[in-house]
């Protein structure tokens, strides 16, 4: 996954915003600096087994480290500029701009933001990297798996009081341009006409959320090798040559109508906490699987300790890019339509994830602003097998 590099090369808007944000640096009272830090690592039960969440070794390595810095500058009464940078151990602490945006406070309850923003896919999207803000070391992997979490665009965020309820609505329009790793080959990945809406309603101890997003999704895997002599692109040409143009289109990910739905609930009574989330990603007509993912967490707080149990489930649905090709029809060169059908099915079969993960975790707020977390994940994957991961992290905000 490629993010915006620092110094900025691509996004003039982001650069302009950063400059706008730096102008008031002369007046220190107008600039707020805050940060977050996570230092952690983990061990797997069997290094020969399936890798999970970046944990691969049987010996403890502190290789899941993250430093984040956020700068907010007040430009005027109504306008603030915000930039958030992160440095991760996984990418050799290279500094990256996650967010860079201008906020225009329209009224007390409505703001418009423009620039690089976090896409509001999930309950915890806004503070994905800020481990201190939630109870796990990282949010449940099966649901929080989407590789593209940011977008360039505009959004409107409004809050409302409805009697004793609090509600919010966030709507956005934007795009992302990134790269995606298809089995070792980097493929350009981007969206156009990406838009979405997320709404919440809650009271002091619970919150309910729904979200819907859609986009024209392209993940250009045409250069990804399919065999020693062919690529996804050349195979699509073969399909077209034999008159299966529709299947060629239903195979490649080219401006496909993708959508993403989310429904979530959180509760915190002080003693008991809970979070439940269900998501469905429909990638459109291509070889990608439809992702159906969910988790449920319950926890109990005692003093500065919080213990939780989380169950996650991935039950993806296989795509059928071969639909419509008649079986057993003789073809020149390849022999039979069965070869085409078999190839399409073989590619589609690499995509779905069917996995159950059961986790227990503890959070201990041992001093102000700092928490120590422990987590044990028990992974049962239908195709990749079983694994257990024990992870630990210290997470802080400042």
């Amino acid at each position, binding site marked *: 996954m490629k993010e915006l590099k620092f110094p900025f090369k691509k996004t003039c808007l982001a650069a302009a915003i950063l400059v706008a944000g730096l102008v008031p640096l002369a007046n220190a009272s107008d600039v*707020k600096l*805050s940060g*977050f830090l996570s230092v952690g690592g983990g061990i797997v039960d069997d290094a020969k087994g399936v890798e999970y969440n970046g944990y691969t070794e049987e010996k403890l390595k502190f290789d899941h480290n993250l430093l*984040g810095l*956020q700068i*907010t500058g007040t430009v005027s009464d109504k306008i*603030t500029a*915000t930039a*958030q940078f992160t440095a991760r151990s996984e990418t050799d602490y290279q500094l990256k701009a996650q*967010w860079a*945006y201008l*906020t225009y406070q329209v009224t*007390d*309850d409505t*703001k418009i*933001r423009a620039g690089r923003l*976090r896409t509001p896919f999930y309950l915890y999207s*806004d*503070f994905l*990297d*800020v481990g*201190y*803000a*939630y109870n796990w070391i990282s949010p449940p992997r099966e649901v929080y798996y989407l590789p593209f979490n940011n977008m360039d665009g505009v959004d409107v*965020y409004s*809050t409302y*009081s409805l009697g*004793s309820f*609090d509600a919010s609505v966030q709507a956005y329009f934007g795009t992302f341009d990134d790269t995606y790793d298809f089995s070792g080959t980097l493929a350009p990945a981007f969206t156009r006409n990406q838009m979405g809406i997320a709404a919440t309603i809650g009271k*002091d101890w619970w919150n309910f959320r729904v979200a819907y997003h859609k986009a024209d999704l392209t993940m250009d895997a045409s250069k990804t090798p399919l065999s020693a002599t062919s690529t996804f692109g050349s195979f699509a040409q073969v399909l077209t040559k034999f008159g299966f143009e529709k299947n060629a289109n239903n195979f490649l990910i080219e401006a496909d109508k993708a959508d993403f739905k989310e429904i979530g609930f959180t509760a915190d009574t*002080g003693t008991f906490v809970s979070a439940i989330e269900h998501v469905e990603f429909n990638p459109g007509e291509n070889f990608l699987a439809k992702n159906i993912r969910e988790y449920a967490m319950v926890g109990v707080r005692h003093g*500065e300790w919080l213990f939780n149990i989380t169950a996650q489930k991935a039950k993806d649905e296989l795509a059928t890019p071969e639909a419509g090709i008649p079986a057993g029809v003789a073809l020149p060169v390849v022999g039979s339509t069965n070869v085409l059908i078999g190839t399409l099915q073989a590619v589609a079969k690499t995509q779905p994830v069917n996995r159950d993960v059961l986790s227990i975790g503890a959070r201990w*707020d041992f001093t*102000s*602003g700092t*928490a120590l977390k422990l987590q044990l994940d028990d992974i049962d994957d239908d195709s990749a097998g079983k694994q257990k991961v024990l992870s630990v992290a210290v997470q802080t*905000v400042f």
Partner: protein
Amino acid sequence: MKMSKLYKLMIATAGVTLSLVSFADVAVIVHPTSSVATMTVEDVSRIFLGKSNNFPGGAQAIAINQDEGSATRVKFNDTVCKKSASQYKAYWSQLMFTGKGTPPKDVGNDAAVKALIAANPNMIGYVDASSVDASVKVVYKFP
């Protein structure tokens, strides 16, 4: 034997005194010219948790905190916001790293809060009730 009884009595007295101190009333205060006469605990909590930026009636409200570690702050967070110090911090870290909210500024002790409130018609803060004087107006009080 007598010494030990006296000693126990002294400890008990000290204990009572201490608990009296920590059970002193907390007063939520605003500027004396504010049109707000009284507030409910929900009104106060909504402003201090960033769910509302306005006083009942519509005037802009800017909340200010006592410094971390202050006994008054602990009690205020516990009773009004219904959060421990670390829960309060985690709650705000969900908002401050998203551009969706900024926590109330930590401005100091009773005297510092009172001085700021007395000078700013839009501010709302809380102090130990014993330090309230005519420079501020009490809109909510809890034991």
